[in-house]
Each structure stands twice: as C-alpha cells, then as structure tokens.
C-alpha cells in the first residue's frame, strides 16, 4: 500500500457511471491509490442498480451515455438519494446540458477529458462535511 493510503482518513465511496470502459478502469485504479473506492458502472442502468444495493458518498456521472441520458439518470439518483452529491462529466460545448443538470440538483460539472487532480479536488469538495 502506498503512503497516500495511510495518510487518508476515511475512504470515500464513489459511484462512477461512464460507458467508456477503459476510462472507468484507469480512473478507478488511480482513485483507489487516492483513498477513493470506486464502484464502476458502465451504463445508467448499472449505476441505478448499484445505488439500489448500497449508499455512496458521491457519484460521478457521464452525461453522454448510450442507454439512458445522463440527465435522466441524475433525476433518478436524486430521487433515490437526495443527499448524495453528483458530479457530472460533460463533453466540451455541452454546457447547456450541464446547466440543466445543476438545475436538477447536481453538485457541479467538469469538462471531459479532465485532469485527475481537478476531479479529485471536486470530489473532496463535494464530500467535505462543511458543505
């Protein structure tokens, strides 16, 4: 285990919903090293099923997916667990969808592809108790 593991206090439970398997895999690997336990979902449906099984501290949701539109997934998430912050990932130039997401209760959005550090910063912000 790395130094970061020991340094971390509580591990964050994160639900990552994105249909790009390669991206989900590498992100979960890297986040694991940064005290974040990632539950991987490769579609909106999988994400909803995962949330049904257990609670998460935070969710990261890609807006552009093949089966269900990210915004619809977000609305369902918010019904299932209104207290769970949701960070959205959007393609460049889809701010309109991102803004719609904010209106539906999302915590914030990030432009994809984003730096890992930015994403982690945003995640920590979302789960910080002061929020």
């Amino acid at each position, binding site marked *: 285990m790395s130094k970061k593991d020991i340094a971390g206090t509580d591990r964050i439970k994160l639900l990552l919903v994105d249909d790009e398997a*390669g991206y989900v895999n*590498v992100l979960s*690997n890297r986040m694991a090293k940064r005290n974040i336990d990632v539950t991987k979902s490769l579609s909106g449906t999988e994400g909803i099923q995962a949330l049904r099984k257990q609670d998460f501290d935070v969710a990261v949701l890609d807006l552009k997916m093949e089966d269900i539109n990210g915004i619809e997934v977000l609305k369902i998430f918010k019904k299932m667990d209104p207290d769970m912050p949701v960070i959205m990932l959007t393609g*460049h*130039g889809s701010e309109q969808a991102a803004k719609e997401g904010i209106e539906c209760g999302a915590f914030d959005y990030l432009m*994809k*592809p984003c730096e890992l550090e930015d994403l982690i910063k945003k995640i920590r912000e979302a789960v910080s108790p002061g929020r």
Partner: protein
Amino acid sequence: MDKSKETKTTDYPAFFRKRIFIIIAVSITPMILVSGIILYQFNRSYHEKVHAHLAELVLKHKQNIDGFLVEKLGNIRVLAKTFSFEELSDESFLRDRLEMLQRGYGPVFVDLGVINSQGLQVAYAGPFKLGKALYSTAGWFETAIKNEYVISDVFLGLRGLPHFIVTVRDNWKGESWIIRATIDFVAFNNLVGNIRVGETGFAFIMNREGELQTKPLFDVMPDKGPYLEFMKTKLKEKDDVQIVERKDAFGNKNIYVAAFLKGGDWLLVYQQRASDAFSDFRRALRVAFAIIILGGLAITSMAYLLSTRMAYRVARMDKERQMMDEQIVETGKLASVGELAAGIAHEINNPVAIMVEEAGWIEDLLEEEDFKEGKNLDEFERALKQIRTQGKRCKDITYKLLSFARKTDSRIQEVHLNDMLEELVAISAQRARYSNVTINTNFQSNLPLLEVSQSELQQVFLNLINNALDAMEKTGGKLEMSSKVEGDYVVVGVADNGPGIAKANLSRIFDPFFTTKQVGKGTGLGLSICYGIIKKMGGEIEVRSTVDVGTTFYVRIPLAKEKEKEEVVATT
C-alpha cells in the same frame, strides 16, 4: 474559376442600350403618331377654314363689284329712257344731268357723252375737251352700237388715261344713238384695292384676254399663274368661286381665289402667299415641333437615366448575388468542415483521455518502491510526461475544433465594445512587451452598446491580437487598435506592421486548417472561427495586407436595431 465568372457576367452595355432603345421606341412612337394625326387633321381643317374664309371674301366682293356695275348701268339706262336724244344733245342739259348724277352718287361718273349712229359725239359734259369727237373707228363704238348696253374693259382712249365706260343704246326716229358715261377709275379701283388680308393678300381684276382691269398692289404676271386656266373654266353656278394653290413665277407658293364678274367677262382674282395665309398654322406647327423635340429630348434623357439606373441596379444585384453565392459556398464549406471536426473531436476525446490517464496510472505505479531503483526511471518519467503533454495538446486541438462547431457562450448581451477591447489589450500587454510590440489604441468615445455574445466577440479579437503579435514576434513593431461607427456598423481595426500576408495566401486565410505557422504552432482554425462568429452576428470581417508593410483586419459589427435605439433615446 475566373473563367466561369466571366461567362456568368452579363453584357451590361448591350443590356443598357437595349433598354434605352425599348423605352425610347415605346414612348416616342405613340407621341409621333398622335402628333402626326392631330397635325394632319388640323392642317386639313385649317386649310378648309382658310379656303372657306377666302371664298366668302371673294364672293362678297364679287357681288359688291357686280352690284356696283349694275347700279351704274342702271343710272345711265334711266337717263336714256327718261330723256330723248334731242334733249340730251343739248350740252347744257347734259351738263345738268351729269351734275345731278354726281350729286346723287358722288364723283363716280366722270363725264357723259351722246353719240349718234355715225359715231359722232353730238354732245359732251365733263372735264375733258372731247367736243365733237368721232368714235366711228373706236373699238368700243362698234360693240356699243350693236348691243343694248355695254360695260367696256379698261382702256386708255383719247384722253390717255385708264378708264372704262358704260354705254346704253336707244332709238330716236329710226336711228340708233348711244349715251356713254365714263366711270371714275380710282373709285372703281378702290373697290378691289381695298381687299387686303394679311401682309401679302391682294385682289385685282383681269379680262378674258388677261389684261389687268385694276392696278394690283403687287406685281402680277398675267401670262403666268393659273389665271388663264380660271378663264377657261365654265362655271355651273354664277356665284362659284375657284381656289387653287400653286407656285408662282417667283417660286413662292400662293393661294389663288377667283370669281367671274360682269357675266364672265372679267375675273376677280385674290391671291396671297400660302405662308402668309397659313401663318397661324405655321406657328402652331412650329410650336408642335418644338414640343415634339422637347418631348423627345425629355424621353431620351429619361430613358437614359432610367436605363442607367436599371443597369446599375442589375449590375449591383448580380454582384450581390455573386457575392452571396460565394458566401454560401464559404459558409457551406465551413459548416461541413465544422460538423466533421466536431465529430472527430468527440471521438478522439475519450481515447486521448484514457491514454493520458493510463500514463498517469504508470506514473502512480512508478512511485512504488520496486521501481524507484530502476536505472531507466528518469527516462520513463520523461516519456510519461511527454505523453501527458501531447495528450493535453490533443485536448487543446479538440477544444478548438469544438469551438468552431459550437460556440462556448453564445448568449446575447449588451457589450461595451471599448471596455472589452481595453481589457483584451491589457491581457495582451505582457506578451506584447516580450515581443517588443507597442499597442496603440484609437477608440471612438461614446460607442453605442452592441447586442452580441461577449465571449464570442472576445474570442474574435483575442485571436486577431494574438495573430498580430505572432506576426511581429521576431521583429517587434506596432499594433494599432481602432473603433468607430460607420453607418449601421461599428468597425474595429486591428493593424500590425508585421511581414504581411502573401497575395496567394490572402484568399485562403479564413479557410479551416489553413495556417502558415510552423507545424504544432497553429491549428489553422482561429480565423475560421472568427469568420464564423462575425458572420453569425451579421457582420463582416475583411483583411488588407501588403507584404513587408503589414496587415489590417477590419471587423464590422452591426449596431443594435433601430427600435431598441429609439427606446434608449426615449428613456434618456
């Protein structure tokens, strides 16, 4: 491309000439036709009117003169019937009779003479000393003795003065005798001489032999002209008048009006220059021609004006259409490239993101102790950093491609252009200093507010400023920024004195992916994006460049619409 343009271009001069010809033909033809018909009708009726007027004039005078002659003859006949040859042969009695006649009718009767059948004048009363003259051989005597009464032609006679006589024959004791009265020529002449119309109208009398019986006002050549033809004519009615128009011996066109007098012995002729008789008509004709010529001129000049304007408009419309065609092609080109670019950008984003993250994952793993001692660790780290850098570069490119297809923030808002430009200049100041470039601004104060997307406009000007700074990076130079209102537009100029753009490249600089920068330095999308943004705003972007002198970009942004401007005025 140039060839196809040439074939498309209309032949404007020919088009122009054709329009002029059509307008002139269509306008002038009816004018000339109508004027011609009116003039022809007017000419005819005017001639008829003049002819009728002159015929009446001549007829009236003919009746007047005939009446005069009949009356004088009547006076003498009464004298012959009332008194006998014996009584009248007494000169003192005859003188009394003359006085009586002169008292009653004025000095029309010059003298009286009584002549017996042998032609001897037995008595005479009058101013001449004609005494016992013998007229047996005189031409008039032979006629007079054969006829009951005679009105002679004008002749000189013994007295040597032009005169004419009236004779009445009677019988006394089986012998014929004659009483003869001389009619005052002047008085008679005045009857005809008084007929004067216009400047050249006059009348005279001639006999069947063509000898003048009165003194005409102007020269008359009896053997020329239509006089003898008049003589030959046999008239059905005694009051008929003949009218002829023809050229006289002097080559002038005359109007001749003639009527017989004295039972066909004499001809009363009235003649007048046609130009004089129809002077009113000539004047009307002149006015008409002046109007036609003026009208023609007016029509021609109007046709010229209209055609010029029409040709100009057509030319302008063609030019506009051509420009629009080019624009459509340009826009279409940009749009299709834009869609393609956006598609590629989306597709590339994910693999690039995964690559970058995988590189990051390797970096994470390298931090574990097993690898720390590896002899190639530095080289691994350098390669991974390079992968991340290049991945970021890919991301920048896809961002720009997506900006090109979809604008970042296209919300319309009120923009203070000058403030925005000042801001951009401030942002660029640091970079300008490094490149040894001075930035000068010349902004028109009180520019109206623009209603556009601020971030899009920022993108445009930042791009232009960056391009200018890039151009002057090595040499340094001056960047001039200006803004001013021109008609319905605000024009912003961005001018550098860099190396300029080669003519061959000038037409391509707005094409997507066209760049003259080094590989890796420019995407060739900046100006395409600017072009797309400005076009969308309804504005224009234009470039002027001279090699070694510099390049100026002009961006024309439309002002807010009138209605809103009025509202602003109303509220202030």
